[in-house]
């Protein structure tokens, strides 16, 4: 099996040293400022400490340098059926999602299961900015500057057992507040899953912010998954439960239409969806279409996970 390698960075992308030094200095200063700014709040509510520093986290080597989609487009064009099925519904009804307090359960095949407060899940020193392409199965795409940390860091803290083969995620279920959940559009709560090696991959992120600010509700506050080489629906929003198990789980979309939404849902220009040709995509904010890249452009990083698999069968 090919060993995983971090992508090579072209010379043009390397920051010149004076800029690099200036940036480090700026980060140190802003980090200091963030701590100072959070200090009065610490007495009342230590929770907000990580939120204040989201704009000062280091940028990851795994980021793309493609131009960012505007904040306005990222936050007003969403699929988040808990808040409604139209693209504008999630931003219109974002206030219905209650994100504080928030607990995240980690259970199943782990030595240290637990029900954690969000502030115990998020460790400020693990946060990075990750600029990823996002490709929706509906054939549109965006470039989003997430702030988050690698899922594997959280999983490792809870010590997966040898029987942990898959990770299952579950979104918030709150039909009293979330208008979309009062109708049987899909079988609530929303569920998604990853194979263990996919979950442990360095690209797989738990995101808590974007554009240096806490995650907007319509984008899956307070904590969501981001799996950039898979269609957007795999990147489950507003997670309340993470469960490790031996059997392959069934995702909410897969259960609804197994012939349309496979478990893997890897971005693949060669396998069409019955409703959308996947060969090309519309980058939001751009005119024209661009050709869709295998694994959404993350082929060098993830192709080895699927070596020997028939991707038409395991779509």
């Amino acid at each position, binding site marked *: 099996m090919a060993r995983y390698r971090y992508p090579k960075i072209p010379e043009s992308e390397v920051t010149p040293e004076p800029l690099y030094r200036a940036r480090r200095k700026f980060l140190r200063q802003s980090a200091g400022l963030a701590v100072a700014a959070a200090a009065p709040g610490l007495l009342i509510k230590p929770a907000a400490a990580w939120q204040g520093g989201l704009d000062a986290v280091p940028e990851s080597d795994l980021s793309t340098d493609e131009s960012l989609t505007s904040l*306005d*487009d990222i936050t*007003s*064009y969403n699929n988040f*059926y808990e808040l409604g*099925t139209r*693209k*504008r519904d999630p931003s219109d009804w974002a206030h219905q999602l209650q994100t504080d307090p928030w607990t995240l359960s980690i259970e199943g095949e782990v030595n240290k299961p637990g029900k954690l407060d969000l502030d115990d899940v998020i460790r400020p020193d693990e946060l990075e900015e990750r600029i990823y392409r996002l490709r929706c199965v*509906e054939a*549109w795409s965006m470039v989003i500057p997430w702030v988050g940390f690698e899922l594997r860091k959280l999983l490792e803290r809870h010590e997966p057992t040898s029987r942990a083969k898959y990770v299952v995620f579950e979104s918030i279920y709150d039909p009293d507040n979330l208008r979309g959940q009062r*109708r049987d*559009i*899909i079988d609530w709560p929303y569920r998604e899953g990853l194979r263990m090696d996919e979950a442990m991959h360095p690209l797989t992120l738990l995101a808590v912010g974007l554009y240096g600010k806490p995650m907007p509700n319509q984008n899956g506050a307070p904590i969501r998954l981001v799996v950039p080489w898979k269609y957007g629906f795999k990147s489950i929003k507003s997670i309340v439960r993470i469960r490790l198990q031996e059997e392959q789980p069934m995702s909410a979309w897969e259960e*609804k239409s197994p012939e349309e939404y496979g478990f893997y849902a890897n971005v693949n220009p060669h396998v*069409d969806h*019955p*409703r*959308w*040709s996947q*060969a*090309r995509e*519309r980058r*939001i*904010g751009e*005119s*024209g*279409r661009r050709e869709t890249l295998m694994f959404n452009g993350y082929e060098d990083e993830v192709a080895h996970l699927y070596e020997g698999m028939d991707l038409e069968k395991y779509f």
Partner: protein
Amino acid sequence: MFNKKTAINAFRLLVLVACAGPALWLGWAWTQAELGANPAEAVVHFTGRFGLGLLLATIALGPAFRLTGWVGFMAARRQMGLWAFVWLCGHALAWMGLDQYWDWPWIWQDLWGLEYVRYGVAGLLLLVPLVLTSFRAAQQAMGKVAWQWLHRLVYISATLGVVHFWILTRADYRDVTLFAIVLAALVAFRLGCVVVDRRW
């Protein structure tokens, strides 16, 4: 005061405004960036829904006349049917131009690769003979019975349109169900008339 003719003309004017007005709104919304992050998709969806809605409304004018006896409904029928065709052509052009950027190989590939596109195109093409025979001289040349039979193709076209909409709906079937119910009611009314009149 209002005589019968004024009422009919007023209704025809109302139909004109109702059919053309949304085009002005759409153009305005486009220039004002009111169509959201994906304006091309918004235009394709709006033209499709409005065009299919107008096609069903056109079919509904027949039953409306039969139930009320008011000739204004029939007087507006050709106009509304032609508007439905215009909107559905706009829908097809918006798909080819705004969504596919006139990329003919890709358009061709989607046409044969995606089932719902085929149904939509077939539904639109079925309307062409109806449009070509919509003027009075064609009606007279064909004879009334033949003309009526030809124009019943509108039911097949509308059905293809609803099937097209149904297939491309991802999960929330409220809107397309409404279209399907209206279509089913119109077909049922038409079949009911056959029973009552004892003739096709």
